[in-house]
């Protein structure tokens, strides 16, 4: 039994299984709160704690999964390219919206963290929390943050955005699909976008484009900030 649970393949298989359970629950429950990754994470945490397995042992298998994050990020160029027409048509609102929004995100994170007296490694981990995970995790690492805090913060941001932002934006009086889409994509990346797609085709496309632009802008701004740190 012990040998089986220290095998990298066992943890690979269990990871896939827990994610499949998450996908199944998501399809059945039809609510953004039943996020497949969140469900898989809770299941795997429980399993690791219950079997007394360290994350170090888990990562003998888990590292193979993480390795594919880089090609997955590179693949993000595909949806941007597919939406090239939409991107050209609304270039200015997308660029300016994502740029100002990303600055507001990092600025407000910094100010609120200071206000709440959070320590600097937590601040660096939370700064890129509105962008897509592969970019955010790399940005956090370059700023001296803890990648796993960033990964969780990004998921919580996405979930909150998916559940609350459509209603919040409507309350603010926003009823233009372009505005709604860019706002959701800039503030809550792919998880928010999955909800924006349900609102409408324009909202979904705009939100998807904003993910890439906001990610790029955040990485650029962080690299400038890193020089001054």
């Amino acid at each position, binding site marked *: 039994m012990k040998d089986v649970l220290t095998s990298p393949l066992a943890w690979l298989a269990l*990871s*896939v299984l827990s*994610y499949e359970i998450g996908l199944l629950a998501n399809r059945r429950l039809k609510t953004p709160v039943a996020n*497949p*990754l969140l469900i898989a994470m809770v299941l795997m*945490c429980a399993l*690791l*704690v219950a079997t007394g397995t360290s*994350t170090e042992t888990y*990562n003998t298998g888990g590292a193979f*999964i993480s390795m*594919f994050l*880089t*090609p*997955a990020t*590179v*693949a*993000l*160029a*595909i949806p*941007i390219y*597919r939406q090239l027409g939409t991107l050209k*048509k609304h*270039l*200015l*609102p997308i660029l*300016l*919206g994502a740029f100002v929004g*990303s600055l507001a*995100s990092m600025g*407000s994170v910094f100010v609120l*963290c200071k206000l709440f007296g*959070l320590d600097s490694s*937590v601040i660096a981990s*939370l700064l890129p*929390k509105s962008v897509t995970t592969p*970019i955010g995790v*790399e*940005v956090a690492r*370059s700023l001296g943050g803890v*990648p*796993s*805090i960033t*990964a969780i*913060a990004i*998921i919580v*941001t996405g979930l909150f955005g998916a559940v609350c932002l459509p209603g*919040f934006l409507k309350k*603010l*009086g*926003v*009823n233009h699909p*372009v*505005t709604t889409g860019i706002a959701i994509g800039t*503030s809550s990346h792919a998880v928010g976008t999955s909800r924006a797609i349900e609102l409408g085709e324009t909202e979904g496309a705009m939100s998807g484009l*904003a993910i*890439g632009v906001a990610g790029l802008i955040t*990485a*650029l701004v962080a690299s400038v900030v*890193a020089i001054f740190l």
Partner: protein
Amino acid sequence: MKYLRQLAILFALCVAGDLLSVLCAGKLPGNVLGMSLLFILLAFGVIKLSHVEEAADFFLKNMAFFFLPACLGILDVFPQIKSQLVPILAVIILTTLITAAVTAGTVHLVLKMQARRAPVETAVPAETVHSEEATLS
């Protein structure tokens, strides 16, 4: 064989991104540079969608799964952030609302300016301009 070739192209782009990252002293993440490189090569027709599409879609469709190990790292850092859990959650919720509001405000202003400057020839389609005016009234 087709899928292997597509994977090889994506992996090569990852390596190229890492190389570029080293060249700019690691200030920009290699994955972002790899993504930009793929976009440029697609835009200039050096790489065709059909060269990478299926493998890329596999990664895109299952993107969230690849973050599972990173998320499980929470088990190692939880003791460190346990005492700061409430302020961290407050920061996440408040800043998400602020970001969405500021982005929406910016886009709203840009669309308004574009609609005013060139109501007909603007890049914004007619019906979009119309609904924008309806929003404003």
